[in-house]
């Protein structure tokens, strides 16, 4: 459980930023999904059991901060973690822009799954009128914040210790001693 506490607190911090701080400056369509960035990062870096549990916990946190029903993001993030794990076996995870590429794919997949679940299970088909027009803005802002996340992570990685795997630069810097 101790292992997951940092994920839970970071998730709650990101959820607070999304629900209380960012709305002061950004309209709904332009608000990034910070928790999705975290889920993708953990999907790339942690082993499968940890990534799965972290994905489920972060999904539950996001569900507590949005929408009417618990379970939607739990399922969505679980699928995203699983897909990320499958992809990491086939992609070059040492490439720095991979997180950005995954962010693009993750945003598209998340929007598709949210739209699918809400349309099929909750019969809220009108959510598509909200999701589709906002998609290009979501892609842009998520990639922007993922870039920021990556830059900050690389800058402060010495504080947290090196982790092999994530987006290349860390892996390379570990091996080149920089």
């Amino acid at each position, binding site marked *: 459980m101790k292992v997951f506490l940092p994920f839970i607190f970071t998730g709650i911090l990101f959820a607070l930023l999304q629900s209380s701080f960012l709305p002061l400056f950004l309209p709904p369509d332009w608000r990034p999904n910070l928790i999705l960035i975290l889920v993708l990062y953990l999907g790339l870096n942690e082993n499968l059991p940890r990534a799965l549990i972290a994905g489920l916990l972060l999904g539950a946190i996001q569900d*507590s901060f949005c929408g009417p029903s618990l*379970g939607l993001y739990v*399922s969505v993030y679980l699928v995203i973690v*699983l897909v990320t794990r499958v992809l990491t076996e086939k992609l070059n995870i040492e490439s720095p822009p991979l997180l950005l590429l995954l962010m693009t794919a993750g945003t598209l997949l998340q929007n598709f799954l949210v739209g699918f679940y809400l349309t099929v*299970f909750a019969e809220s088909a*009108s959510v598509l009128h*909200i999701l589709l027009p906002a998609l290009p803005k979501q892609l842009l802002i998520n990639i922007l914040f993922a870039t920021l996340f990556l830059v900050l992570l690389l800058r402060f990685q010495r504080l947290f210790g090196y982790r092999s795997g994530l987006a290349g630069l860390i892996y390379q810097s570990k091996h080149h001693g920089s």
Partner: protein
Amino acid sequence: MRELLRRYQFLLLAIILVLATVILYSYNLRQKTATTFFERAVLTFSAPFQSGIDGIADTVSDAWQNYIWLVDARQHSLELEQENLELHSQLQQVQEISLQNERLRKLLAFVDELDRPALPAQVIGEDASNWARTIIIDKGTLSGLRNGLPVVAAQGIVGRIIKIAPDSSRVLLITDASSAIAALIQRTRTRGIARGRGEDLSIEYALRDADIQAGDLLVTSGMGGVFPKGLPLGRVESVKKDQFGLFQQVKAVPTVDFSHLEEVMVIVGDDR
């Protein structure tokens, strides 16, 4: 068999987990009014932080305004003479604002007219996603609130409480895609269902022959028992009739400006 299981263990695990979470979601969809222990814990834990962020944002905003005021003070003094001339016209505007205040007070008083007790609350957070439309208010079960209570603002209906914790609640806005409210056009009493579409509302099941015009006021019909009858929901923006079909397509703009919502009233009781 064991070999088969071992070979496809990842796929099997993935399918089982996804199915389990889908079942969890489906189950929770049927328990809409129930707040789970996890949700209550997260809401309780995060409420003080959300209030804090809200307070800090106000303080920073005030400080920034004051700073700007100081920077501009010199220029401002030079402009005073010009401003003095404008004061006369501003005085007239003040009188206009005074009248507007009076009107707003009357709007706020509709809670009294409904003869139902109401509790003021402050908006301390918004939804953490870009597609759902919910807000968090700083009152919960400790203030006597419960799930399903209607929430209003001076301009009309805001939504209803869907999740509740001791000192905070989540309110589903009328613009959320899962919100559907029995409504009627005030002028012609035409009935329909006002469904949220993010920024606006669509009025469903409004009969094709019904007289609906742009600018018509949309009010709650009182059917369903959640919202009192006759409260403003929105104004009709456009009406479209296809060549075929039983119903017309009506779009309405909410009377409440959700982007500037700071205080709301929760109607806490039934008719006295």
